[in-house]
């Protein structure tokens, strides 16, 4: 979305190839076996955030599963039915790369241990180009902190149906995040107001990302793929000023003052 940098003002002439590089942030989905259960978890996520993956570039990490081409095609079909378009795969067995299958992408930057259904990494993807030299994912690799991105400050309430997507860094909202609104940030999210909608922090793999809000009534809070919905939140935090962080075993919500 806003990670998409377009350079429309470049001169366009048929005599030029108009080749340029293009970097964007993609979400990496890592299916795990059994696939049926994994798809059920995915459906649970989609029921809460139907448009979470819509129109976003998705890369499928196949390292954790060992499947046949036939099952792989079936999986792609299942994802397509959920409006998840896979632009490429990572860690795929050579037998899973071929015509009419997503290309195997390598050279992705930043990796995080898979936590739940939604994880994001930041692969540099040259526009429509062949894969480059390999850099494999290792789950235990220390995290290159994806901090240092720009913070986004929004000086207005976020209305129902609006979605603020800022994958490069922190988001600060001065105002309310209404029921049905959504904040998706690469880093931390600070809301100086009531949160009635969904807040998703740390999607760029920052496991130190936190969520702060002055009045918690959230539908969903999520950091690094671990999430908590209104139903399974402690009723004591309702309406309180809270801090949410990722700890061992899930989200930790602390009441401030």
């Amino acid at each position, binding site marked *: 979305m806003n990670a998409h940098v377009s350079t429309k003002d470049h001169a366009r002439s048929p005599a030029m190839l108009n080749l340029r590089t293009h970097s964007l942030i993609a979400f990496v989905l890592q299916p795990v076996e059994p696939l049926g259960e994994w798809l059920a978890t995915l459906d649970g996520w989609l029921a809460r955030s139907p448009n979470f993956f819509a129109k976003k570039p998705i890369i499928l990490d196949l390292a954790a599963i060992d499947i046949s081409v036939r099952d792989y095609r079936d999986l792609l079909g299942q994802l397509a039915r959920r409006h998840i378009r896979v632009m490429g795969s990572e860690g795929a067995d050579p037998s899973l790369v071929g015509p009419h299958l997503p290309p195997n992408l390598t050279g992705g930057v930043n990796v995080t241990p898979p936590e739940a259904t939604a994880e994001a990494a930041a692969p540099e993807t040259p526009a429509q180009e062949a894969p480059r030299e390999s850099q494999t994912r290792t789950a235990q690799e220390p995290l290159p902190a994806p901090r240092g991105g720009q913070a986004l400050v929004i000086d207005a309430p976020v209305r*129902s*149906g*609006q979605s603020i997507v800022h994958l490069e860094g922190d988001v600060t909202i001065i105002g*309310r995040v209404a*029921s*049905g609104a959504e904040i998706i940030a690469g880093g931390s999210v600070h809301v100086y107001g009531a949160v009635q909608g969904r807040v998703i922090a740390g999607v760029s793999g920052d496991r130190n990302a936190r969520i702060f809000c002055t009045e918690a009534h959230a539908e969903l809070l999520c950091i690094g793929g671990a999430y908590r919905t209104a139903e399974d939140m402690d009723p004591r935090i309702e309406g309180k000023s809270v801090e949410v962080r990722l700890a061992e075993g899930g989200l930790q919500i602390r009441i401030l003052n």
Partner: protein
Amino acid sequence: MSKVVVVTSGKGGVGKTTTTASLGAALAKTGQRVCVVDFDVGLRNLDLVMGAERRVVYDLINVAQGDIKLSQALIRDKRIDTLNLLAASQTRDKDALTEAGVERVIGELRGAFDWIFCDSPAGIERGATLAMRFADEAVVVTNPEVSSVRDSDRIIGLLDSKTLRAEQGQRMEKQLLLTRFDPSRATRGEMLHVDDVLDILSIPLLGIIPESEDILRASNLGAPITLNGSTSEAARSYEHAARRLAGETVPMLFPSEKKSFLNRILGRRAA
């Protein structure tokens, strides 16, 4: 300087059409030239509320498609000659309206009227987005119910992004009209409080219209409540809202709970 005001809400049945007719009539009474435009193609109602249903020959779509002149489609009110109606088509669907067509009609209306009220259909589809597209400001009609407030919040988001003014980086003025307000239910805590609604939507309050049988009766008789000589609280609230819309400062009236004689006695005894 003419002003185009969209009357919108997201949710259906909250009182957009009644509000369009009542505000339009209230301003027309003061001598301002007013045109009310029904954008609810396929489910038109404004003609009924204005009492002009038997006089509709041509409609918004005929003008937008360039089949006839605007003057042929305008229906002048029989009670106030500064009040005009441009009806919607009942037989066509919303796809018959094009953005270019609407832009041309609104442009022509701007040349002939001081106020143009666009009565938006419910929803956030084409009809609703076209109704708000060329507006200068918006009246967001909301009931003090959670579903209505959330839909209004959504509509405010669209007003801030999908209108021509917003796209040109200009400010889109939005004001809240709280309708069907029932003071007795509010005191019993069965409805959202005015403050809660204002806090959630964070836009200025244009007025509070009490739930009233007079309004229902006026709509069914085809005489907007600000035109039929009613002295009810609802009529007064609409008149005040219209004056505020025109820039006057009018103190806000909070609808009071009407207590019958018996209730008052009982209330006192209980206290």
